[in-house]
């Protein structure tokens, strides 16, 4: 699957939280939220106004962009474009090295070779009108441990 942005359903970016996340993507950064409370430390995805564990305020951290496939499926039937033209493709839950999971595609890979536990790394693709940049994942070229800025 190569990323075809034409006619892809896009997120509505109309609130400050969503805006901040996708501004990060446009800079090439995969942002993750962390609880701002000194004792909680919870990290989460998708981004929200509050920490889902304690209800307190959150702050952004720049994620490593690395993770592993927690579970996945190979979509072999989707009647809506642009997906119909890209069959078969991989929809996966990516467990980020920072902890939270997010849905994405694993691209640049033969779907038959994807496995649970496979290390992956983020890459980004901008919409044709330049308004949104989306995170996608592909098999990691080199596996380096730890977290932090890429």
């Amino acid at each position, binding site marked *: 699957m190569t990323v075809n942005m034409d006619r892809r359903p896009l997120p509505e970016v109309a609130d400050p939280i969503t805006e901040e996340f996708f501004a990060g993507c446009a800079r090439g950064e995969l942002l993750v939220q962390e609880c701002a409370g000194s004792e909680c430390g919870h990290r989460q995805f998708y981004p929200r106004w509050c920490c889902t564990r304690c209800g307190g305020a959150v702050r952004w951290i720049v994620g490593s962009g690395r993770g592993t496939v927690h579970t996945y*499926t190979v979509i*072999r039937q989707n009647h*809506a474009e642009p997906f119909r033209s*890209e069959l078969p493709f991989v929809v996966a839950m990516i467990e980020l090295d920072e902890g939270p999971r997010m849905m994405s595609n694993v691209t640049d890979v033969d779907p038959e070779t994807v496995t649970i536990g496979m290390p992956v790394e983020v890459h980004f693709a901008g919409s044709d009108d330049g308004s949104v940049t989306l995170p996608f994942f592909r098999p990691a070229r080199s596996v380096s441990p730890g977290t932090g800025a890429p």
Partner: protein
Amino acid sequence: MFPDGYDKGQGERMAGGDRTPVIVGIGLSDAPIAPHLDGVGHHVQAMQRALDDCGLPKHEIDGYMGAGGGGPMVDDAVNMAEYLKIEHRWLDGTMVGGSSFEFHVQHAAAAIKDGLCDTVLCTYGSSLLTKSGRMLGSKGFHVPGQRVAGSSKWEAPYGNVLIGSYAMAAKRHMHEYGTRPEHLAQIAVDTRYHASLNPNAMYRNPITIDDVLDSKMIADPLHKLDCCVVSDGGGAFIMTTAERARDLKQSPVYVLGAAATSSHWTISQMEDFTTTAAAVAGPEAFRRAGLTPADVDVLHFYDSFTITALLMLEDLGFCKKGEGGPFVEDGKLRIGGSHPMNPDGGGLSSCHPGMRGIFLLVEAARQLRGQAGPFQVADANVAIACGSGGWLSCLGVVLLGNQAPA
């Protein structure tokens, strides 16, 4: 507002009587293929048949519940209450997908016990097959190029389909517990056997495990025959007090225990892809009923996909977590087996117009009355109905029996 002779006093009509909540009337509309009805027509026909079934006059209904599903402002609870002209003093429009009706039973049971209302109607109707064809599970959620709001904005760009969400749960279950495609296929095979006994089922030709595994892969590891059918259909049931049920046409089906909760809505927020909220609601429903899984004679599980039913077997305690695959291997789920499941043919082979939860309750009541004809389970005294709404998101568990609770 109320017809002549109608006593609208709060709880006065049956005060002092036995307020144990019971199901007294059930009805199904024409199914599985009914091009002569629209969704609202299914609601109406099912209501008429439920009223005929128990002999209650319509004006005695003083509560209504429904989940809609036919589009905004079409057949949601308040619109259907208006359309049917139900003079209600209690209304529940809980809409959590296909399990909404199990949530409704929990709510109505409490409302009836508390005297908020006496006699509650629940209806559902859908012309999904006639209106939309067979592509529900793989047509994609969004129109090309659409801007998506809310929590699904974090999923929409990636082309997942409804089946894909269940497929990810199945994939993880296989990874953690060694569950095999043959195990899931066995559930489809046993359910199809039941459908072969039901003249109103959509697909009645028996199938084999190989038939399932050879059917088209839709979203790995789920094949076409791991997926429920798309049909038309509707259902209705009427709940009242044990007191009012005494002189009605049918013997009552008692609500012994009910519980319902959700663990997420969008699939990407499911924390444990091998465990649903039935692991919470199930034990609570059993505790309220004073029963254990060993007491259940017939299972009505929302089999949207084979994996859905397998997870329920584990989460409700019929077997241990991870052991669902081997558990289903030896025919336990068939009529005559130890755990007969969906004897009507279920969503996998009989009827699935979009939200199957109401059929679980209607079919369970039919079994407990001994009126299921060619697919009757012998000595069915306690039944469980477990609905799943959304994407393994909202689980409602109802225990029903044909004897009054102790």
